[in-house]
């Protein structure tokens, strides 16, 4: 079988049995990126020389008998993870040519694991967006339908994995930024529990919500990627000091008796009928495997949306104050004085959506408005967390849609940015409560993929991955890829 269609376990077997070398594997994927990415625009930076060097080092380790799951296997980083020696732009003109002076913990871990980075993927600027159209490096196309967005903010990672330009990619998720693009591009994505993956060196958007994770074709692939990324990091004060289970070993947990909660409030008028039908199909597959469907209440999605669009901008306005035209990246030309330098550097360096969120956040935190906005939003956050706690008293896993629709057309929300926020209505509550969530492909509406969301209690990633994996043993949606990206089709 062609290398680009193989799972991470199959690639591991091929490398360990010398069917191909890490160099050959890396060359094969680099060639695919070279062939296809001019159209897709899923990468901001490619690093072919560094990738081949890393592949050669992996071949030496493999030859020495080392066994490690990701050793010699290519991947791509969302361009939000700091990488020494390779520019980290965060999708922004502000950091257009900025090179981080240190590696993110996630990058250090993947380097130590011998994973081979092919480049850094496109994203909405500072991870703010649901379409990848807010990138200073241009929009990304959805490989299933070039008229559609790939979702965001990890849109480049999702598109690259869907087109099989990389076997897997990292992502980050603050309000849905792994799960929604995974759904739109027909790949599997996992956002772990808040604190599971270190945020050190992951450029901050909203620090109490941001969490790194994985996008890959299958849940089994996600398990391998997450295993390498997860774990306690003393350099991130919010990192969880919890042991990391063996995610791959736990994949074969049976679904028999698993109680799957289906939120009544999520299957209402706002949900596209075809998306709802594909979710119902998937629920039947779970039931055939012995899972028990439980209808549950999960109210307050609109309340969560309101809370998120104050909390996230408030934290962003604080985090992004560091980009001042003095210490990092972009500076405006010929500043008149210091205030002009600050104001014009930030006005020219940030895109419209980032500026909107900074302004909203500054307003929400300003004197006289803090209690009315930020304080109320934090109370709403507790309400959302309590709703989930009540739901998990009745079920083990929650299942529902990832987004109200399939991928929308490029430019569809350009004239009214707030309407795009509604795309996040099912994903945002999960971030507010800090829970792990996944998206798995469950079919199509026309050309465009449909994703199902699985949500678990804190630190139940193993259960979620196993639930997804058992579904993927019975279905082949995760194995489908867009025909235009098959070899020989160009």
């Amino acid at each position: 079988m062609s290398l680009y269609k193989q799972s991470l376990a199959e690639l591991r077997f091929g490398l360990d049995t010398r069917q191909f070398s890490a160099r050959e594997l890396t060359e094969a994927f680099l060639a695919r990126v070279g062939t296809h990415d001019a159209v897709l625009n899923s990468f901001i930076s490619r690093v072919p020389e560094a990738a081949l060097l890393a592949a050669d080092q992996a071949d030496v380790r493999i030859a020495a008998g080392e066994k490690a799951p990701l050793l010699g296997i290519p991947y791509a980083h969302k361009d939000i993870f700091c990488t020494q020696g390779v520019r980290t732009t965060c999708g922004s003109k502000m950091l257009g040519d900025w090179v981080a002076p240190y590696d993110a913990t996630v990058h250090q871990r993947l380097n130590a694991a011998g994973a081979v980075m092919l480049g850094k993927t496109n994203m909405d600027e500072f991870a703010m967006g649901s379409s990848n159209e807010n990138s200073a490096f241009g929009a990304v196309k959805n490989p299933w339908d070039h008229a559609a967005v790939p979702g965001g903010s990890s849109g480049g990672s999702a598109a690259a994995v869907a087109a099989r330009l990389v076997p897997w990619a990292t992502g980050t998720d603050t309000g849905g930024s792994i799960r929604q693009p995974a759904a739109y591009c027909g790949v599997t994505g996992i956002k772990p529990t808040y604190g599971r993956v270190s945020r050190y060196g992951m450029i901050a958007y909203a620090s109490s919500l941001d969490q790194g994770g994985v996008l890959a074709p299958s849940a089994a692939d996600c398990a391998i990627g997450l295993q390498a990324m997860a774990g306690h990091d003393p350099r991130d004060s919010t990192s969880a000091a919890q042991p990391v289970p063996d995610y791959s070993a736990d994949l074969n947990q049976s679904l028999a008796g698993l109680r799957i909660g289906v939120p009544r409030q999520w299957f209402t008028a706002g949900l596209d009928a075809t998306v709802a039908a594909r979710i119902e199909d998937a629920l039947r597959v779970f039931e055939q495997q012995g899972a028990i469907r439980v209808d549950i209440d999960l109210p307050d999605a609109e309340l969560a949306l309101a809370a998120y669009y104050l909390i996230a901008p408030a934290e962003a306005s604080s985090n992004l104050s560091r980009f001042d035209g003095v210490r990092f990246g972009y500076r405006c030309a010929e500043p008149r004085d210091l205030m002009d330098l600050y104001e014009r550097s930030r006005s020219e360096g940030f895109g419209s959506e980032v500026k909107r969120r900074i302004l909203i956040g500054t307003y929400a935190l300003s004197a006289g408005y803090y209690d009315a906005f930020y304080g109320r939003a934090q109370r709403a956050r507790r309400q959302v967390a309590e709703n989930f706690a009540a739901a998990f008293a009745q079920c083990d896993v929650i299942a529902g849609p990832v987004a109200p629709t399939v991928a929308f057309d490029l430019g569809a929300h350009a004239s009214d940015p707030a309407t795009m926020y509604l795309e996040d209505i099912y994903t945002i509550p999960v971030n507010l409560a800090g829970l792990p969530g996944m998206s798995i492909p469950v079919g199509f509406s026309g050309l465009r993929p449909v994703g199902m969301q699985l949500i678990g209690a804190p630190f139940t990633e193993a259960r979620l991955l196993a639930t997804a994996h058992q579904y993927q043993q019975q279905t082949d949606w995760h194995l489908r890829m867009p025909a235009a990206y098959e070899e020989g089709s160009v």
Partner: protein
Amino acid sequence: MSLNANQLKHVAHLSRIAIDEAQVPAMLQDLNAILAFAEQLQDPRLDKLMPMAHPLDQTQPLRPDRVTERDERVVLQAGAPAVAQGLFLVPQVIES
């Protein structure tokens, strides 16, 4: 609660973001569409709840008060727009 033009200009200044007068009406429309979501937060059920800052209600860990970082000024300043003799350069702020 919605923003008016004067409040927007004040918030833009607090944010250190220059805005053109011509942009103000469109920005007000976009920002007030976002703030309209906040009406939801007047829900009286929230009155009795404690604000939640960390999703898992964790508190900050403490560590010994020991120096852990070396001086890496040269490396850290490499990404700055203008540097000389170990200093970040900005327009003159003190009159000569």
